[in-house]
């Protein structure tokens, strides 16, 4: 032992209570249970209140992290919530689904020697506290008489709407579905993000003055040009997400028990097929299920299939564990629940019977070669490695593409070669004056918080644009 002063061993985050894996794999209740007041205080105490904190720079919407943690320490949770809401309209959601490990917690200074401060868990604690204790509305801003239409009520649209209403704009969200939230409602499952929480966050925005019209498909019910010219909105924000499923283009993909993750999750989450027949929308579930893909969507689909009664669920991914894009926590949760992982495997055909039901999935093995454009090692097929997996249901969770309804109905809107909307990174402005865009429809499938960041920057962009126009 050296003579040097003994340094304290690295500390860990205060653990968050969770439902036991054996129990939760059979129900749709939330997996993570959140901090108690005592746990939140203990975690907040560790924050060093850095003079030059690094956590904020890791946050796409610049939540005043040091300040809200300080307010927790003062036990003023309501003020802490208000502090977060200055820049983030959806903290109860972000606290649950943001990949903090690559964002604020990744840059946290305390985290250089220890596990970082559990910023996400603290955010969740504060937001839940405020919601459960009749959080007051922020002061109303006088209306400035200008009207903005927001297309889509996903995180991008909701954030843009919230920020604009705070600046005094008259804001109307036009949503294709009968419920708000986008992926938060139809994609991410109840056990990870309870729908009542999404609805409460949206309700808060509504109370602040945001109007929402449902069953309203832009490009069908009304076009972007009509919104601008006939309905006389001063500006339009497009936040329609990357809603189009991608299939592998292999034989057997149209079999009856092959689903896109979008279809499978929408049936279960938005239409509540897990409560069939109380709810009318059904969902089919196999006994042995393969989910193809390695992102959050694949984890969600696999864990949902398990909860609906599949006896064995496999995640089939063509690269290795290190390349998996899913959040670390989701991966761990899936493993704990007994999801099996087949790495370096790629499907080549789904085999079916005469009723159109899947009876197997032919795959080949892969190995990692040279890195590709994304910097990840490219998977290459192993010769003569074909084998058949014994499955009777397949979910394709290999990504999404740009939904063509808005792009094809909006002449003059500049698109990338993949069909996404070209928008300025800082202001969100598109090739059409007064029309802004952000979120997955610009970047392709990304994260809740990056969509929120884009919505926030676009709100600022719209404000600057309309102020300059008025001057």
């Amino acid at each position, binding site marked *: 032992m050296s003579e040097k002063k003994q340094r304290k061993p690295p500390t860990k985050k205060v653990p968050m209570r969770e439902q036991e894996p054996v129990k939760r794999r059979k129900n749709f209740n939330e997996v993570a249970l959140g901090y108690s007041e005592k746990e939140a205080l203990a975690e907040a105490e560790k924050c060093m209140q850095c003079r030059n904190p690094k956590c904020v720079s890791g946050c796409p919407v610049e939540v005043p992290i040091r300040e809200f943690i300080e307010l927790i320490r003062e036990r003023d949770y309501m003020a802490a919530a208000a502090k977060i809401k200055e820049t983030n309209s959806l903290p109860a959601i972000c606290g649950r689904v943001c990949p903090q490990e690559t964002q604020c917690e990744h840059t946290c200074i305390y985290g250089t020697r220890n596990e970082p401060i559990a910023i996400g868990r603290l955010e969740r604690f504060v937001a839940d506290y405020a919601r459960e204790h009749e959080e007051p509305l922020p002061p109303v801003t006088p209306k400035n008489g200008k009207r903005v239409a927001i297309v889509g009520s996903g995180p991008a649209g909701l954030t843009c709407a919230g920020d604009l209403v705070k600046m005094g704009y008259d804001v109307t969200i036009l949503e294709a579905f009968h419920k708000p939230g986008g992926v938060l409602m139809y994609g991410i499952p109840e056990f990870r993000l309870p729908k009542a929480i999404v609805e409460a966050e949206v309700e808060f925005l509504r109370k602040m003055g945001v109007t929402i019209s449902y069953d309203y*498909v832009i490009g069908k*019910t*009304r076009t972007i040009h009509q919104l601008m010219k006939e309905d006389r909105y001063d500006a339009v924000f497009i936040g329609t997400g990357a809603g189009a499923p991608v299939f592998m283009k292999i034989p057997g993909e149209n079999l*009856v028990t092959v689903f896109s993750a979008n279809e499978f999750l929408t049936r279960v989450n938005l239409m*509540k097929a897990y409560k069939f027949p109380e709810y009318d929308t*059904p969902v089919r579930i196999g006994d042995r299920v393969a989910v193809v893909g390695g992102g959050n969507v694949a984890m969600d689909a696999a864990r949902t299939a398990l909860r609906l009664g599949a006896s064995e669920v496999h995640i089939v991914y063509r690269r290795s564990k290190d390349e998996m894009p899913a959040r670390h926590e989701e991966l761990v949760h899936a493993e704990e629940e007994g999801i099996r992982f087949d790495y370096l495997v790629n499907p080549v055909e789904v085999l079916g019977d005469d009723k159109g039901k899947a009876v197997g999935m032919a795959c080949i093995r892969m190995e990692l070669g040279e890195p590709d454009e994304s910097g990840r090692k490219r998977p290459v097929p192993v010769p003569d490695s074909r084998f058949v997996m014994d499955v009777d249901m397949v979910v394709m969770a290999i990504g999404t593409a740009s939904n063509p309804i808005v792009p094809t109905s909006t002449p003059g809107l500049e698109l990338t070669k993949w069909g996404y909307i070209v928008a300025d990174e800082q202001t969100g402005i598109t090739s059409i004056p007064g029309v802004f865009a952000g979120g997955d429809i610009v970047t392709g499938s990304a994260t809740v918080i990056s969509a929120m960041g884009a919505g926030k920057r676009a709100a600022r962009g719209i404000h600057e644009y309309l102020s300059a126009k008025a001057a």
Partner: protein
Amino acid sequence: MYEIKAKRVLNPSTKMLVLTAPDVTRVCRPGQFVMVRANETGERIPLTIADCDRKKGEITIVFQEVGKSTKLLGSLEVGQSVQDVVGPLGKPTEAEKKYGTVVVIGGGCGTAICYPVAKAFKEAGNYLITINGARTADLLIFRKEMEAISDEMYETTDDGTCGVHGFVTTVLGDLIQKGKKIDLVFAVGPVPMMKFVSKTTEPKKIPTVVSLNSLMVDATGMCGACRVTVGGQMRFTCVDGPDFDGHQVDYNELMGRLNAYRDQEVISDTRWSKEHGGSK
């Protein structure tokens, strides 16, 4: 909420509702459909817009009561509302165009569905032949409406209780055999009927358009539930259709996909019948 302004029982299992949906009527065109969700626990089902009154802001839907969702819709009365009506969705039929002689074929409740399309063909100056088929005389619908717009009209019943004894393809085959010059055939109805219509027109390569009724969830191209194989390619009925080249559709696959939830439909239907006094 979308109020029911009128209701008509077309035959014992087929009903017609007129709904207030002004946003839909502003832009809808023949061949398009709406997604309807009857109530908070309901499923979203696609129904073709059978008529549209722009001035009143009302659309007409016609449906056969085949399962829980359609029975639930059929149980609603004037003055009540349906929870959601979304649309107009899908691409309009290219009916506002002159082809020459057009044969419009409706099977079962398909007759009501193809009515606005037939009307548009007629208004565009086409010579309109309609063939209206059903199992039995009582089930023939929209007879007066069709008669009013047709240059020639045929009716067929499987049991011979009205019109030609046989199928719609019996009449179509006859017309073709007699050497009638047909420029386009448009068919809506049960999958086997569309399949056989397409088979009948194939040898003479008569352009044939069918309007497909795939299962749908969102109907905005988001989920792929409605996918069909057309000409060897994967297409989405809700955004690429519902109209496709009848000679290119893989009907067997379509049938399989339409039957995907048969077991669950029986569960829902039985439950509904129990709660509603066992009435059919």
